[in-house]
């Protein structure tokens, strides 16, 4: 009898062990790390969790934050001098993956263990609105951290401050970059077609849409494409809409006339052969290849980060083959905002990082010099525009800030809504089929309506102009 009870117990223990298996390992791991936490960091947590979608922020932080000691070779953990660890949680932006993961973490913020809490997260202009929302209250007001936007961030471009503020005007994020876009072109193609690669002369050829169209015809005659794809021009139209996609408190989505212009012009340009029809959209292999030396694409519309982060790695020829000039229309593309997550256990460290990365002029100028980022300091950028030290080798010794600075001062940021990312992504997808002639105009409209209502079930109606 005893034996039998014993073996029954054994069997149950095995069963329980199997069930508990996966749960147990993670809890012991976090227990161990929080144990280490108390020793190293004093009253603040020993782990700073940062959510982002690529390593852009990490490289900036490593470059200028004086407390950085070292980063592990796989780039997931950065150790600071006082022993605090920064854990990088990186998820791709595409298809809303980053936001899904971030939302999940933010909703568990209250119950998460101190060292598992989100401390800093980044957001892009496309969805910054969702996270600065006052009722959601997931991003801390900067004043609560001890940062006074009026004095500490006085030198920032004012539109970046507006973008990072909630509906009551309370600033809940700050950025180191400001993303005026330019037209980046290949010097050799300009030489071949226009006989000059001088930015001023080329700028004259692309100064507005009508002139650019005539220029596109010239380029086509020589066998070149003006831009790679219809997605390249989207930001110029899409970021100059006059009304938000969805007005606050409403469930009606209004497609702006500017978007319709983009659709009309893109179709016309693609049919005319001004775009490379084999490149469908951005961020894919074909698009990357179109930035290579074998491509026939004349120009790209990119902000400063695009030149450093996208164009440079994809270019396989000699440095100095590209140059920048004014775009046909002023625009802003992107911008990574740094937010302190509500409930963070490292408020002082977070405050330090935000100030050091977004308010320190010397640091910002260093980022500009090393990474060609157009940084968020009005006076600094004005200095850079005339300082020869900011000339870029990649652009053949041209000082791009001369062109960036005036664009930045003229940017009017498009009114935001929390549905922007889905709208921007899905309208391009839906009309891709239309541009390529797979579906007619009305079908593309219906496809957009279907897709947007799948993504955002609370949208009840879509109005077309």
């Amino acid at each position, binding site marked *: 009898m005893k034996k039998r009870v014993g073996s029954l117990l054994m069997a149950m223990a095995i069963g329980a062990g199997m069930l508990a298996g996966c749960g147990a390992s993670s809890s012991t791991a976090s227990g161990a790390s929080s144990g280490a936490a108390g020793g190293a960091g004093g009253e603040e947590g020993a782990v700073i969790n940062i959510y982002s979608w690529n390593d852009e922020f990490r490289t900036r932080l490593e470059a200028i934050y004086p407390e950085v000691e070292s980063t592990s070779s796989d780039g997931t953990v950065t150790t600071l001098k006082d022993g605090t660890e920064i854990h990088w949680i990186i998820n791709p932006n595409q298809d809303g993956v980053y936001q899904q993961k971030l939302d999940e973490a933010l909703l568990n913020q209250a119950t998460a263990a101190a060292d598992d809490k989100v401390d800093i997260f980044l957001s892009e202009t496309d969805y910054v609105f969702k996270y600065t929302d006052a009722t959601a209250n997931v991003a801390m007001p900067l004043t609560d951290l001890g940062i006074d936007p009026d004095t500490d961030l006085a030198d920032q471009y004012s539109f970046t401050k507006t973008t990072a503020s909630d509906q009551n005007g309370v600033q809940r994020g700050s950025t180191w970059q400001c993303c005026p876009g330019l037209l980046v072109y290949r010097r050799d193609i300009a030489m071949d077609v226009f006989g000059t690669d001088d930015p001023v002369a080329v700028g004259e050829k692309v100064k507005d849409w009508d002139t650019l169209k005539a220029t596109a015809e010239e380029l086509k005659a020589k066998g070149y494409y003006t831009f790679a794809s219809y997605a390249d021009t989207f930001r110029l139209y899409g970021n100059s809409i006059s009304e938000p996609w969805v007005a606050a408190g409403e469930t009606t989505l209004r497609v702006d006339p500017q978007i319709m212009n983009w659709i009309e012009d893109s179709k016309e340009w693609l049919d005319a052969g001004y775009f490379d029809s084999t490149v469908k959209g951005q961020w894919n*292999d074909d698009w990357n290849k179109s930035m290579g030396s074998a491509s026939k694409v004349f120009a790209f519309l990119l902000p400063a980060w695009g030149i450093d982060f996208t164009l440079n790695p994809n270019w396989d020829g000699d440095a100095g083959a590209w140059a920048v000039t004014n775009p046909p229309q002023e625009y802003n593309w992107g911008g990574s905002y740094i937010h302190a997550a509500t409930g963070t256990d490292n408020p002082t460290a977070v405050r330090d990082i935000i100030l050091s990365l977004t308010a320190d002029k010397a640091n910002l100028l260093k980022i500009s010099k090393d990474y060609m980022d157009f940084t968020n300091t009005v006076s600094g950028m004005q200095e850079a525009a005339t300082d020869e030290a900011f000339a870029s080798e990649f652009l053949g010794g041209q000082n791009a800030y001369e062109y960036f600075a005036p664009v930045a001062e003229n940017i009017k940021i498009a009114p935001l809504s929390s549905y922007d990312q889905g709208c921007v992504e899905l309208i391009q997808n839906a009309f891709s089929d239309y541009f390529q002639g*797979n579906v007619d105009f009305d079908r593309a409209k219906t496809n957009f309506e*279907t897709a947007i209502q799948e993504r955002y079930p609370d949208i009840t109606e879509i109005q077309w102009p």
Partner: protein
Amino acid sequence: MKNKKKSISYAKWGYIFILPFFLCFLIFSLIPLVDTVRYSFYEYYRSGLNEIGPNFVGLANYKSLLESDMLRYAGNTMILWLIGFVPQIVIALLLANWFTDIRLKIYCKQFFKIVIYLPNLIMASAFSMLFFAMFSTNGPINSILESLGWIAEPIDFLGTAFGTRSLVGLMNFLMWFGNTTIMLMAAIMGISPDIFEACEIDGCTPLRRFFSITLPLIRPILAYTLITSIVGGLQMFDVPQILTNGQGNPDRTSMTLIMFLNSHLKSRNYGMAGSLSVYLFVVSAILCFFVYKMTNNETSPKPHKQKAGKQGGKGK
């Protein structure tokens, strides 16, 4: 007392040892399954960071799904499945027949068996990425065709419904025909050699032998293959998802039911996703019932049971 002890049933230990499985099934499969069904009657999603619901809405989710393009996606799924399944079963039958034929002396049989099974070991998403890169307009396949002089302009494989669907079919075929071949071989080898010998003495042609002896005798396994393949086909997701970037391009012609489900989960729309799952569950149950009845009366109930478990697990 002592007498009673002697008549003890050892079957009890069997139950105790399978208890962990049932506990796992209960916690990780059955409870989520019941939850899925429950939420299908609720309005329950997330808008931005705010949770909406759960509010009981009755059959509203089911109704709005019927009004949506769900049936079109069901059609897409079936077409994609057929494009892959038809060549798969034909080639698998042929190969299985050859490999088991004693008169055909195929060398390195073991080697070939491994080779045809290999594509199944690659992760579907990796395989899909590979195809996406290979068949892109500026990709290697187009370059090869162009340098051979077979085509003048690059072919836009992923720009047409035909091209995209064929690629999905081709991938599914490549991934699964080895698995099916090996299963069918096992079935054919299970047939008594006496029967084959007898028919040969009677002067039966190989073709006749295949249709009159092999096929009828492997019917149970064929039915099993068909059922698992249909259920797998209904759940088709990773290959078209990766190949079309989750959009089901062009014009949503390669959008499968599970991709549709996935786009609802982007907004954490548990209500809508739940009711779609319930539809899927019912459809696969009906399909299986038909195939099961049609093909056979002597199949052991085992494959059916196994299938139902799998479905429950993925029904969420």
